[in-house]
Structures are given as C-alpha cells and as structure tokens.
C-alpha cells in the first residue's frame, strides 16, 4: 500500500501497520492514562495496574514464542482444529502461574482490603488471558475485531471513573477497569472461537517447544523481564541510595512504586510506534520474500551457489531494512528528545524529570531495535542467540540502573539507555554473523539426533536381544 499509492498511501500504509503492531498496546496505554488523568490521586490504582501488567507480560512472555512457533506449525499443517485446544492449554498454564503469583501476594500482604485484593487477582488473570488471546489471534488477521475489543473495553474502563455515579474509590475504579478489560477479553476469545472451532478441550503438545528448545521461552520471558529490570531496581533498591530514591513509595509489602521514573519510561515507550510500523512493512514486503526464497531454494534442491546468492540477498534486505527502521524511528525519537519538556504534563515538569524522559526515549529506541533483532533471530531459529540477547539486556539493564542510582540522580534513566544500546549492538552483531553463516547454521548445525547408549554389557553401539552370561575375552 505504502509503495503503490504515493504519499497518501505511504501514510495510510504505515498507520495501518502501526495499528496492527501496536494497536492493543496503544489502546491499553491510552486507557490507563485516561483513568489516571481522570482520577490522579489514586496511587493504589496506579500501583495495581503497573504490577498487574508487569506480572502478566513477563508470565505470558515465557509462553509467547513457543506458542507462536507451535501455532505456525499447526497452520502450516492445516491442523486448524488444534488451534483452540492449544489456546486453552496455554491459557490454563499461564493463568495457573499468574494465579499462584497473585495469590501469594494477596495472602501475604496485610493491606489493601480483601475484596480489593481479589479484584486485583481477577484483573491479573484477565490481562494475562488477553495477551495469550492476542498471541493466537495474530494469525486471524481480524485486526478490526482486535482493536474494537480494546476500544470498547477501554471506553468502559474509563467510563467507570465517574464521580457522577460515585465511582471514585480505589475499589470502584479498579472494578470498573477490570469490567472493561473483561469485556475486551470476552470479544477477543469470541473472535478466536469463531475462527477456530474447538473439537477437544486441550492440546497438551502445544507446549512441546518449551521442552524441545528451552531457550525459546526464555528469550520471551527474559526480554519482558529486561523491559522491567530498571523499574525493579528503582522500586526495590531503596537500600542502594542513602538519600533514598526520588519518588519511591512503599504502599504495602510487595507493592512498591517509583514515580515519576515509571511514568516517564511508560511515556517514552509510546515513542517507538514508528519502528514497529516500518518493521512490519519491511518484513511483509521485502524481508519475508527473500527469507522464504531461501527455504524454498532448499526445498527446490538448489545448488550451494544458488543458496549462497539468496543468503546474500537476505543480508542486503536486512541491511536496508535496518537502515529504514533505525532512521524512521531515529527521527521520531530525536524529535521527542528535543521537545521532551513540552511533552510532560505541568505537574511533573522538572529538570530531573526531563532528563529521565530523554534518557528513557533513548532507552526505548534501542530496546525496540533489540526486540526486532530478537524477532529476526527467532525467524531463523537462532533460539539460543535470542535468549542470550534477552538475558544480556536484562542483566545490563538491572546492573547499569543500580550503578546510576548509586552515582547520581542526574543519571537516572541512562543506565537503561546504555543497557539497551549495548544489548542491541551485541544482538545485531550476532544476527549478522549468524545470517552470514546461514548455510552452515541451517545444514551442519541441524542436530545429529542420537539415542542414549545402552549401558548393559560391553561399551559400544547395539542392543542385546539375547545375552547368555557375561561376554568376556
């Protein structure tokens, strides 16, 4: 669309791409911002929302890539009947984990009131279920239904913050928000059911990829953990700074907040939408074609020379795609960096907060590039490399953030920026080297499957079917 219809088509194409890639996320952010702005004094609500999204994203993150991989296999084999049972099973596991985490918190914290804790637990499960649904719904390409679900749910959530109805306590707002998100989930699951009718309850084999490639779930889980590692350092690192961390609050055991840092990084993350849009367009139009051509070349029994030529085209496409994503996102990020003070709401505007926002814009810029590199690593099934990149990001983000907390409040946010930049550069280098070596990686690195040696009798290959007495010289 962008290539064929001039300037209008260009913007339309990228807008659609952005809506597809980041729609649910933008809707969620806008809903939370809407609720927060309508009732700015609800500290507890902010803390609930932050924790709920973090727990659910990290939990689902561990299952996102294995489920996506399994789903791709199902669709390739046209086993559509297994899609919904697979969704069921993944959902069950994710909800079991989030329920366990939420229950530990709910049972060990002295406050808030029990009913509020129960609603938080429900919300945590609903949000987790939304992410799991999205993993499976991406294959449907019914983006209107997905965006509509989040829009409707968002409207209900925001509408619940209405003093006219007397909805103004933490519990009221929380319950209203939860109802809105439940509506979103209901529509998402309904859409999924209409696309993939269920013929059995569960498909347990859907998580076989967890066992087969343990680095695949780790790549997803660790990346989301990495996204929040700096927040954790700010939130739980009270002991690090003698003077205390700016804006840090302890609401209850396990329920810490570190505003404005968390709010500013949250805001900065909104700036990366262009990168997602450009990436989507590049992958759909150029990269996927050469990527497919490589594997088709293998199927079509190409010679080594022919395969090398296609691999070279992949490298060229990656290079030009990276340039397009980095420059498009770079312009937006630079713009936001320069006008950061104008972005901030008046009540939060200060020189320190401006610096944090600028650092967070840089951090988000590299973090999104890192995510895209990880996605490409997964495309080529370089699971261990993807996992390593995510782990590096998580560790660096936490360690460097701790260092900046120890050094000076002027450096807040720059730990995350350096971490994401370093992790991105390392991951990009790994990707380039691996793809350059794609033929070896595809052929020779495909494992030679071996059976365990039978320990009975003499060492060596073979299985005794008859053995009378010891065999000795």
């Amino acid at each position, binding site marked *: 669309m962008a290539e064929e219809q001039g300037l209008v088509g260009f913007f339309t194409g990228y807008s659609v791409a952005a809506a597809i890639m980041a729609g649910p996320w933008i809707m969620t952010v806008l809903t939370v911002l809407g609720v927060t702005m309508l009732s700015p004094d609800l500290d507890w609500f902010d803390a609930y929302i932050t924790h709920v999204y973090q727990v659910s994203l990290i939990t689902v993150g561990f299952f996102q890539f294995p489920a996506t991989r399994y789903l791709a296999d199902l669709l390739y084999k046209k086993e559509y009947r297994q899609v919904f049972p697979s969704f069921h099973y993944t959902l069950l596991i994710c909800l079991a984990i989030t329920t366990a985490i939420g229950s530990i918190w709910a049972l060990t914290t002295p406050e808030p009131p029990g009913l509020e804790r129960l609603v938080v637990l429900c919300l945590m499960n609903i949000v987790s279920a939304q992410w799991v649904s999205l993993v499976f719904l991406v294959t449907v390409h019914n983006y209107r239904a997905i965006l509509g679900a989040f829009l409707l749910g968002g409207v209900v959530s925001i509408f619940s913050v209405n003093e006219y109805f007397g909805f103004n306590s933490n519990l009221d707002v929380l319950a209203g928000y939860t109802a809105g998100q439940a509506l979103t989930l209901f529509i998402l699951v309904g859409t999924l059911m209409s696309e993939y009718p269920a013929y059995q309850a569960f498909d347990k084999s859907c998580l076989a990829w967890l066992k087969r490639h343990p680095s695949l779930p780790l790549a997803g889980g660790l990346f989301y953990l990495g996204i929040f590692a700096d927040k954790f350092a700010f939130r739980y690192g009270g002991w690090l700074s003698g003077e205390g961390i700016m804006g840090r609050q302890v609401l209850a055991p396990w329920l810490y907040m570190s505003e404005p840092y968390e709010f500013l990084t949250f805001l900065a993350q909104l700036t990366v939408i262009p990168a997602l849009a450009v990436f989507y367009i590049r992958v759909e139009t150029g990269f996927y074609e050469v990527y497919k051509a490589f594997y088709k070349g293998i199927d079509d*029994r190409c010679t*080594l020379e022919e395969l090398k030529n296609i691999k070279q085209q992949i490298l060229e496409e990656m290079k030009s795609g990276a340039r397009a994503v980095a420059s498009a996102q770079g312009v937006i990020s630079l713009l936001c960096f320069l006008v950061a003070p104008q972005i901030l709401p008046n009540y939060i505007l200060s020189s320190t907060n401006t610096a944090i926002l600028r650092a967070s814009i840089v951090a988000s810029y590299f973090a999104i590039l890192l995510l895209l590199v990880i996605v490409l690593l997964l495309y080529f099934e370089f699971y261990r490399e993807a996992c390593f990149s995510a782990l590096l990001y998580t560790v660096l983000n936490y360690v460097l953030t701790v260092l900046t907390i120890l050094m000076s409040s002027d450096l807040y946010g720059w730990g995350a920026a350096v971490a994401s930049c370093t992790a991105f550069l390392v991951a990009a280098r790994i990707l380039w080297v691996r793809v350059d070596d794609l033929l070896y990686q595809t052929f020779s690195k495909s494992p030679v499957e071996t059976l*365990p040696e039978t320990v009975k009798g003499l060492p060596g*290959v073979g299985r*005794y079917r*008859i*053995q009378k007495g010891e065999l000795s010289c």
Partner: protein
Amino acid sequence: MIDVVFVLEGTYPYVSGGVSSWVQALITGMPELTFGIVYLSESYKENRPLKYEIPDNVVCLLEVSVFDLVSLPPDEGADRLESWRAFSSLAGGLERGELDDFEDLFMHLGFGGKRGATVAELGTSRASWTVLTEIYKEQANETSFVDFFWTWRGALASFLQLMLVKPIPARCYHAVSTGWAGLVATNLRRIHGRPMLLTEHGIYTNERKIEILKAEWLSTMNARLSLRQELGFLRKFWINLFLALGKLAYEHADRIFSLYEGNKALQAEYGADPATIEIVPNGVKIKYLEGERTPLAQREFPRVGFVGRVVPIKDVKTLILAFKTVSATLPDACLDILGPTEEDEEYFEECRALVGLLGLGEKVVFHGRVDVVEWFKKVDIQVLTSISEGQPLVILEGFCSGLPCVASDVGSCRELLEGRTDEDRALGSAGLVTGIGNPEDTAQAIIAILQNPELHHSMSLAARARVKAYYDYDEMIHTYRSIYQSAMESEGVWQA
C-alpha cells in the same frame, strides 16, 4: 568366549530367506559350537518378531541399527583435531571408493583409543562442513546441495556408528556379506585380532549397484541434473561407498567363500584376491525333502510353483506376466505363489493388482507362508524370476523332490540347472534358464517342460542326481566345521 560371531545385515533371524536358512542350518548343524549374532537393522524395534527359532547354542544376539545413532563419549585425552583429520580422510576415501588407511580410521574414529569426538560432534562440526563443501565444489557443484548434504551426513554417520559396535569377543567372526556387515566384521577382527571369514551368497557390491542404478528415488533427486546434463553424482556416490566397503572387507577377510564360480569372478572384479576365494556350495537335507512324485502325465492339471518372498528382487511381476502367456496355451494351468507377502506390502498389492488386471484371478493364488515340502510334491515345476540371486536354496530343495525348475540367468542358477563341471553336466539338465525380466522367455520355458512329460521326467531325475552328488547338507556342514576349527585354532591375525 563365543566360538563364532555371525555379522548379518537384514537377514537372520528376523527376515526369512535363503541366507537366513543357511545361517540357521550352520548353527543347528554344529551344536558343539557357540554362536553370537550381530544383526544390522535399519532402526531399532522392540519385540521385532523372530522368523526362526533361535537354537540353544546361540549365546548372544546383538541388534545394531545402521541409522539410529548412539553417541559414545570420546576417549579421554584424545586429540579432536586428529579425529577430524581422520574424518576428512574417510570422507575423501568414500568419495573415491577406496579406504586406504583403515588403521588410521580405527585409531581415531573407532575403538583404537584416540577417538577425540562423538558422532554428533563430527557430524555438526565446522570441520566436517568444510570437508563436505570442498568435496561438493570439486565433485558435485551442480548437484542439489540438500540431497548431497544429507546423503553424505547419513553415510558418514552410519560408518562412524558401525565403527563403534559393541566389541563382542569371539574366536572368529563370520560376515555373510560385505557392505556394512563387512565393516563391522573388519572392525571386530581388528579389535580382537581374531580371524574374519567372509561368505557371500549374492555379491553385495553388485546388488547394491543394481539397486542404485534402478532406484527411482535417486532419479527424482537427480531430476534437476538431467536438465544440466550432469552425471548422477548421488548414484556415483552410493556405488563408490559400497565399493569402498566391499574392498575393505575383501582386504581384511582371512578367508573368502563363494557359492559358485560366477560369484567368485564377481568378487575378484570388485577387489578380492582370486587366490583367497574358495567355493563352498549350499547344501540341503536330501532325506528330509525327498519323496515320490506323481508323473506329470497323471496330473489332473499342471501347477506352476514359485517359492520365495513376494518382494521386488524376486521380480514376481515378470512371473505373473509370463503366466498370462502360459495360461493361454495351457488353460488349466494354475500358479501357486508360496511365500511371505508381508515384507513389502506395497509390492504385494501391486502384484495382486496385476493378477486382477490380467484376468488371472482364480488361477493365481498367493498362499503366504506354507510347508514347502508338501507343496514341492503338489507342483509340477518351480519358477524363479529373480533379478538377483546367490545360490537359491529353493531350487536345491525342489531338486530333492525331483522338481524341475525354470530360473532366470542370475547367480548360480545356470550351474544348478545345467551343471558346473563336465561330470556334473553329464547328469543332464534339471530345468531351463531364461533371460532376466523376460516374461515371454519364461513362459516359453514353462510351456516347453509342461507340454513334454518325458522332458519333465528326465529333468526330474537329473535334479535328484545333482543335488545328491554336489549339494548335500551334511557335506556343507562338514566343510564349514573344518573352516571354523581352523579359524578358531589360529593364533590370531593381528598382534598389538
């Protein structure tokens, strides 16, 4: 210690057939010796049904899969680079059809104590990739790379795997073919320094060559090549691989045995020293099988019999096509196909379909596994249309019952039917030899015998006389007993 360890590929005790019956005969014929069996299969299968009752003097049966790989840890302190170098030399050798330095392979890839890498490591290493891509560039750069790669990896992995078969100690080793079985026996000989005997019923290298040249899957693989006017590299590769394995076994076997002159010549052609080849024909239990026959003229209707497995190598389709012609001349004739059909069910179904297509429905009967002694009395002529044979026991068993035979000109069929020496030929002809895969030739030979009761009778007498004179089971057992005694009593063939 076990007296004799047989190394067998795809035969005894899990697949019935001539070689398997021969092995069973040797084992049961020498109850005073203990035997071990190394059975090479495609893949491991629990509870694989036995086709023979295992005699009590078999003390060990080891199944080894050629394709299911087992990873053994490398030897401590071994130099990985040396193993990779040996691997490179192995790849080059297989490609050329020559394995020059088995000792080097044994030391660095086998049980020689200097194995520096596992099968999996060798298969996935950068070094193996370099070796394979270099060979590809030099020899096959127009061949589909995926086919080249998996062919090479599979063959090399199987070779490495079979270098590490459990080293069962024995007084002597007896391989009943070259190929993978020959490799295992060569390796066992090297480990324990005990003699290796090699008996070939069919010539393995030759049989594989025929199979490879006929293989449709290789044609499919090379479909692109025909467009590029390229020779079939993969065919060449497989042929060279089995040629190399054949030469390796011939070079290391302390004694080589052949069933007949034709095979001896082929063994020499494929690399065996003619001076080391001895002929020991198959033998059958004459008293057990012989019995009176009803003369052909007194039969209600003529019966043609086929005894064997319904598999492509037996070319049962040619027989069915030939019988269509026979049936036109002798409308009462019927064809009894006597043998297991489950080994290649797809082929069996194709044969059945052919019978239906030719309108022979009631005249051709697949009986499955039967008591052949009884059936030899019922049928009037035995037909064998195989595209490859060694010395078919069924012909000799039929001879015991005075059953003339029509057989394709493969293996020792001509020697069996017409005689090997002048003295043997003087006994007369026991049947007619026909062209391979030639239904018309086969049909005319069957008709010629069935329409002439006198010819049938004379052939019947010649058959009984020949089997008694030259193919006696007791004589064969006696010969192998002395071969084993001599091997077991030898001081060893290799000293560390």
